C-alpha cells in the first residue's frame, strides 16, 4: 500500500514521455482504435444476422472459436508473422490492435444480433404491415429497440479491451501495460500496483462514459424502470407483501 502511494504521489511519474498522463493517453488511443474497428465489423455483421436470421450458427461458432484462442499467444504469433513485413513501431502496433479487435468483436457482435433478434416480433410485423421497407424496419425499429443490448455489448468489449490493452507493452509498445511490465522487470511493486490501479480506474471511467452516452441515446420507452404500471406494481408489492 505504501509502495503504491509512494509511486503514485511521486511527481516525476506524472511527467515526461513515459509519465502517467502519456501512458493513459496511449492506452486510451489503443483502446479507442480497437473498439472503433471492432464495432465497424461487429455491429453491421450483428445487425445483418439479427435482421435476416441468416448465418447465425456459422458466425457465432466462428467468433466463439476465436475467443478461445489465448490472446497473448496470438499476439506473439501475429508479431512474428506480420512484424517482418512492416517497420518500426507499426510492426508491433498492427498485430496488437488486431489481436485486441479479435477480442472485442464477440461481445459487440453478440450484443448487436441478440438486440435485433430480441425485438418484439409484433413490432416488426406491424412495421412491415405499415409499408416500411426492409431497411426502414432495420433502422427505424430494430436498431433503436436493440440499442440497450448493442450498448451492453460495447461496454463489455470496452472493459475487456481496456484491461487487455496492457498486453501491448509486452511487445515493446506503450500504454499502462508499461508500468506492469517495467515494474516487474525492476521489481518495483509500487509501479506495478499503480499501473494495475490506473487500468482499473480507467476501465470504470470508460464504462461511465458509455453509460452516459447510453442514457442520452436510448429511448426512455425501452427502460423498464420508467414504466408507470410496473412502478405501481412494485409499490403495491412493497405495501402488501404476500
Amino acid at each position, binding site marked *: 500500500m505504501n509502495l503504491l502511494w509512494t509511486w503514485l504521489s511521486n511527481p516525476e511519474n506524472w511527467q515526461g514521455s513515459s509519465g502517467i498522463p502519456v501512458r493513459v493517453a496511449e492506452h486510451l488511443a489503443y483502446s479507442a482504435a480497437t473498439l472503433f474497428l471492432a464495432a465497424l465489423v461487429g455491429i453491421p455483421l450483428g445487425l445483418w444476422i439479427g435482421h435476416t436470421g441468416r448465418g447465425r450458427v456459422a458466425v457465432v461458432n466462428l467468433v466463439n472459436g476465436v475467443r478461445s484462442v489465448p490472446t497473448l499467444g496470438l499476439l506473439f504469433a501475429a508479431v512474428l508473422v506480420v512484424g517482418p513485413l512492416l517497420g518500426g513501431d507499426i510492426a508491433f502496433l498492427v498485430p496488437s490492435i488486431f489481436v485486441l479487435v479479435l477480442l472485442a468483436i464477440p461481445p459487440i457482435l453478440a450484443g448487436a444480433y441478440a438486440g435485433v433478434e430480441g425485438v*418484439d*416480433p*409484433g*413490432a*416488426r*410485423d*406491424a*412495421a*412491415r*404491415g*405499415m*409499408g*416500411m*421497407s426492409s431497411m*426502414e424496419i432495420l433502422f427505424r*425499429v430494430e436498431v*433503436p*429497440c436493440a*440499442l440497450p443490448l448493442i450498448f451492453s455489448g460495447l461496454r463489455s468489449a470496452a472493459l475487456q479491451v481496456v484491461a487487455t490493452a496492457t498486453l501491448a507493452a509486452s511487445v515493446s509498445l506503450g500504454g499502462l501495460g508499461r508500468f506492469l511490465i517495467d515494474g516487474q522487470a525492476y521489481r518495483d511493486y509500487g509501479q506495478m500496483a499503480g499501473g494495475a490501479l490506473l487500468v482499473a480506474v480507467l476501465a470504470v471511467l470508460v464504462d461511465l462514459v458509455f453509460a452516459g452516452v447510453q442514457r442520452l441515446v*436510448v*429511448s*426512455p*420507452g*425501452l427502460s*423498464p424502470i*420508467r*414504466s*408507470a*404500471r*410496473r412502478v405501481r406494481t412494485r409499490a403495491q408489492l412493497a405495501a402488501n407483501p404476500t
Partner: protein
Amino acid sequence: MISFTDVTKVYLGGTTAVGGLSLTAPTGKITVLVGPSGCGKTTSLRMINRMIEPTSGTIEIDGRDTASLNPNELRRGIGYVIQSGGLFPHRTILDNIATVPLLLGWDRAKARTRAHELLERVGLDPVLGKRYPNQLSGGQQQRVGVARALAADPPVMLMDEPFSAVDPVVREQLQDEFLRLQGDLDKTIVFVTHDIDEAMKLGDQVAVMRVGGVLAQLASPAKLLADPHDDFVADFLGRDRGYRALAFAEAPELPLRDEPVVLLGSTVALAAETAAGDRWVLVVDDAGAPLGWSEPERLSGLIDRDHLHRGGTVARIGGSLRAALDAALSSPSRRGVLVADDGRLVGTVRAQDVLSAIERRPAGAVA
C-alpha cells in the same frame, strides 16, 4: 371492395393453408373471417396486403390486382392492426400513431396534429400522447394500434384478432367503440377472429372457414344463425342459435305497461305503498333512469343503492327482440325494463308479450 378470386396458398412442404378461396368484402362494410385455428383466416388476411404472397389466384382492391402494385406502397394505403398491438416501444404514443403519415412524407406538424386528433377519436386522454407504450394498459395499447392504423385515413383496414389479448370487459368496450367508430368512418374492413360471438357482433357479413382454408359459408350473422349451410357451420356457431338470432331482429312495438316507480332514497313505506301488493318495485334516479328492483317487505328505513336487485338487464326501445326478451327473463319481477335512447324508463314488458311478437313474425324470417 376487396375480392378474392380462387386464391390458394400452399406452403413449402405441401400444407394447404388456403384452398381456392373466392369471396368479396364490400366497400364500407365489416367482413369477418372466422374459423378454428388452422383454417387459414390469418393467412387470407395477410395475403391482402401481400405480407404473404398467394400461390395462385388474384386479390383485387377496387378492381386493381394487388400483385401489380409495389408491396410497400400497397401496405401504406391499408390500415393494419394486429393482436399484440405491435406498438414501437421506443417511440411515444404520438410518434407511433404518426408512423404511416411520416412514411408517406407528410410534414411533422401535420402528422402530429393528425395523431392528436386520432388519440381523442379512439377515446384516449391526450396526455397519454407523450408516454411510451410500456406505460399503457393492454386495452389502451390496442386503441393506439387502431389509431395508428387509421392515421393516414386508409379506405381499407385489416384487423387480425385485435381484441383477443385483452380481458372480456375491456374487449366488449373496444368492440362497442370500434362499431361506433366504423359508424362514422365507413371503412372497408376485413377482420379476423376465432371468437364466433365477436364475429356475430361485429360482422356485416361473416365468412366461416374450415381447416384447409375453405369457405364454409359467407352470410350475414342473422342468416348464418337462421340457416347454417352444414353441420360444420352449425357446430361452429354453437348452441342457442334461435335465441341469439333474435339479436338481429329489431323488436316491433311491444305492449308496454306503465311501471310504478320510487326514487332512490325514498322510504320503504312509500315503496311498499307504490308496489300496491306486488313484491317488487322499480327504483329510478332523479333523471328517471332505472337503477334496479327493490323488495320493500324485506327492507326498512330508506332505499339505498346497496339494497337494489341488479340481476335484471335493461333493453332499449327499438332495440333487438333478444334484448327485450332477456330484460323480461332476467327481471326478478318478470317485468322487463325498457328505456329510451337517453336512458329514461319508458315502461315494462312481459316475456309473453315479447314471445307473441316473435310468434307473429313470418315463419323462416331472417332479421
